[in-house]
């Protein structure tokens, strides 16, 4: 039993080594201050959340639930779930951008606070787990109409918060990290 376990561990180690050394890097970061432009790393999808949220008004949900034929209401809900899925995907992409920003900032800082780094790593892990769970919920259609309404409200609220935060991050960023608008 121990031997099998050790063999399994060895194989895992070998695979991990290959992946860590030669695995594809989807987002090749350029670790230099000169090439670092804060605007390219900030969340972008959330800027369009407000427009998409117009399509997901709670009033429409209630109307469809009460008035529309059962089949049409079901299809309508499926369509909303698809939009919610896209919303979620956008949220994930925005989070990935922020994550990339945190890593580049950490890599280019001569002194970093360890507690800060562990918190960023922990937040990333939390987000990944939550993201998978929500995506799974939306994919399997395990959301009641009331739940869909609630989710829509949440995301709509998030959209406006993100917009204000984006400008704040850009404001706090060092001048040499900003894109020259001219």
């Amino acid at each position: 039993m121990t031997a099998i376990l050790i063999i399994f561990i060895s194989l895992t180690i070998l695979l991990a080594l290959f992946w860590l050394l030669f695995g594809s890097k989807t987002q090749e970061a350029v670790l230099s201050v000169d090439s670092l432009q804060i605007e390219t790393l900030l969340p972008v999808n959330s800027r369009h959340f407000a427009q998409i949220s117009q399509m997901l008004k709670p009033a429409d949900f209630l109307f469809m639930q009460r008035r529309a034929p059962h089949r049409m209401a079901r299809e309508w809900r499926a369509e909303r779930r698809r939009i919610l899925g896209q919303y979620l995907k956008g949220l994930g992409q925005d989070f990935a951008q922020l994550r990339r920003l945190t890593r580049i900032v950490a890599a280019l800082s001569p002194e970093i606070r360890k507690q800060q780094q562990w918190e960023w790593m922990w937040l990333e892990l939390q987000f990944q787990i939550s993201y998978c769970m929500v995506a799974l919920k939306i994919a399997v259609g395990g959301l009641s109409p009331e739940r869909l309404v609630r989710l829509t409200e949440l995301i709509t609220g998030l959209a406006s918060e993100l917009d204000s935060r984006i400008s704040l991050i850009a404001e706090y960023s060092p001048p040499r990290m900003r894109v020259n608008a001219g």
Partner: protein
Amino acid sequence: MGLSFSDSAHWMVTTVIEAVVLSLALRRNLFDRLPVFTIYLCTVVANEAIIWLTYSFTGIRSHTSFYVYWTMQAIQVSIRAVVVYEICRELLSRYTGIWKLCRPLLILLGVGIASSAAVMVRQQVHPLSSTILMTERSLEFTVVGILILGLIFCRYYSVEIKPHLAWIALGLGFYSAIQVANNTFLGDWFSRVDNSIWRDLRMVSFNIATVFWLVALWKPLPAGQPAPVLLSRGEYEALAPEVTLRLRELNARLLEMWK
């Protein structure tokens, strides 16, 4: 000496490849960048000569040969542990902040695994050969553990790994991973059946590792990059809290969606 013709031929080929790798390392001035690895390559070649002389004078099955062989193995595995630390330093030390975060972890991991192995070996009563294999397995675990942790940091922060360093690291990690499995079999199951396959596996895995190092050093090494321009402490302090707040908010929102 007691070696078969095929064993002698295999030994000869191994020694030639190791000598070629060492000469390439010296020609490429590898000592300037990876001094410990260059010393390790010298030790590997010296090891072949010492073992050959010992076998010639005392015979392959003598006590002297046994102790000389395992003493040389202990020296080599210890140097390998330092080499992987050196590779991690070469990869990460340009990024001061990350290196300050990573270095204590690497040291802690190395000391931790080695200490737990020492305690485990002391607690169990085994024949000398099994104890040696267990100790070596633990030390190989230490080597590969340090390497994997360092590479995880590189992957996490998207630090570029130059091809020559990747091949050198692969050789070290590959050999250590194989030895972990190999020593388990030697000390456990195959010791009751036939360990010649696993002895050959040990030699062949080292040959493969040597070929990886040959690939690493075959072409001239890329020019050393200047240290990157870093942000000032004030810039980090200004940006970090805002980004943290943003990440926390996104998480909180997502958690609400999940509940």
